[in-house]
């Protein structure tokens, strides 16, 4: 094989990162590309980013698993030994993170990780997913009807041509996700990780505007997406505070998390 052919073959392999991330290579080609991945940093980085994108497609597919599956899995787990922590050989595809160290790791320490943390890049959608999974567990007819109403409201926000998503994160890694439409003045807000409140306290959502008192948007439930209405374009951020049961007229505590709205089209 001439050098040119070899280079050409390599260039061809480089182009397989996207199909690989979608699991769209057939067996032999997959194996060949995984071999290439081990030595090509460009493709390794590419595959990591594209795989994060591909996995977003999974978010729309969740469906309740059959009850019998739970029994079978939990029973099997009782008699299934675990692999020891150091067993990180190359048995799973490299893009299944953690199954194989990145090619570069064995050579020199990197100044910073190759990965954009999933949570940073995609937290808004992930939060939304987490919120809905939680809702699915046990619900009555009444709850279902309320969910359908909320789903309609939410769909309306999502359908707005200018709808955009953003995420805020506090020091402890808890997050607030928002999908907002400035033209509609509406937003879907989800909290994640703030479920450790005492029984007599609630989370209250506030709209922060320049030269104005915080405006209460309502009380938040940790595992339920909240639809906020009446957001004016001057709004600068959303804030969440812990308030006594029933909520307060104005915030009585410092916000536990705050999210700027500029990136979703507010704050003119």
């Amino acid at each position, binding site marked *: 094989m001439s050098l040119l052919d070899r280079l050409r073959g390599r260039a061809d392999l480089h182009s397989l990162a996207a199909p690989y*991330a979608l*699991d769209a290579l057939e067996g032999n080609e997959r194996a060949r590309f995984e071999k290439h991945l081990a030595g090509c940093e460009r493709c390794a980085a590419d595959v990591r980013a594209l795989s994060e994108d591909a996995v*977003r*497609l999974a978010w729309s597919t*969740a469906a309740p698993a*059959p009850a019998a599956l739970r029994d079978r899995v939990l029973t099997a787990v009782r008699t299934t030994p675990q692999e020891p922590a150091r067993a990180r050989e190359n048995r799973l595809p490299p893009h299944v993170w953690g199954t194989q160290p990145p090619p570069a790791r064995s050579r020199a320490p990197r100044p910073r990780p190759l990965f954009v943390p999933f949570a940073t890049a995609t937290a808004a959608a992930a939060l939304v997913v987490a919120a809905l*999974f939680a809702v699915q567990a046990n619900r009555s007819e009444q709850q279902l009807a309320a969910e359908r109403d909320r789903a309609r409201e939410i769909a309306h926000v999502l359908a707005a041509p200018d*709808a955009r998503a953003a995420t805020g994160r506090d020091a402890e890694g808890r997050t607030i996700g928002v999908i907002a439409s400035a033209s509609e003045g509406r937003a879907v807000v989800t909290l994640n990780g703030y479920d450790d409140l005492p029984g007599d306290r609630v989370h209250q959502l506030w709209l922060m505007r320049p030269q104005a008192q915080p405006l209460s948007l309502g009380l938040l439930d940790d595992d339920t997406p909240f639809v906020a209405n009446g957001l004016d374009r001057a709004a600068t951020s959303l804030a969440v505070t812990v308030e006594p049961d029933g909520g307060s007229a104005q915030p009585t505590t410092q916000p536990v998390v705050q999210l700027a709205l500029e990136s979703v089209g507010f704050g003119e």
Partner: protein
Amino acid sequence: MEADRLLIRVAGGDHMAFEELYALVSGPVFGLVKRVVRDPAQSEEVAQEVLLELWRSAARFDPGRGSALSWILTLAHRRAVDRVRSARAAGEREQREALRAGTPAFDHVAEEVEAGLEREWVRRCLDRLTALQRESVTLAYYDGYTYREVAERLSLPLGTVKTRMRDGLTRLRECLGGVA
């Protein structure tokens, strides 16, 4: 996220943590596998393998390199695709063709009865891709076709399909809330 904390405890042999993890991820795992595999009985089998693999291989998860949910769903997708391909190779091709005839892959997204928020959001973003980007991405991801099969089905050159897949994924990233 919660799944990350749980998976780390599962790696230490914590059965309670596994039950919690199961509650959190069995729906996403089963739903994804079923979308790709389609046959309910086979989907259950594959989902069971994946969930057991989480228990067995939890120690392989490296939280520094991505979220647990992402790791889990990537694993589930790989297993589902492998299963649907071997099922096809075993002679279910005709049946599948009949099922698929004239049905653009995108409709599979639309046919779900339940209007979940995340579903709406993904759908909305898929809707913003060009038709070729969307079909290239969804035929591969939701239907388990290789990019060669996708090229054949769409009568496109291989290079074009690879590019559409990349562009489609990148555009999804932008739409699905790529802002930090």
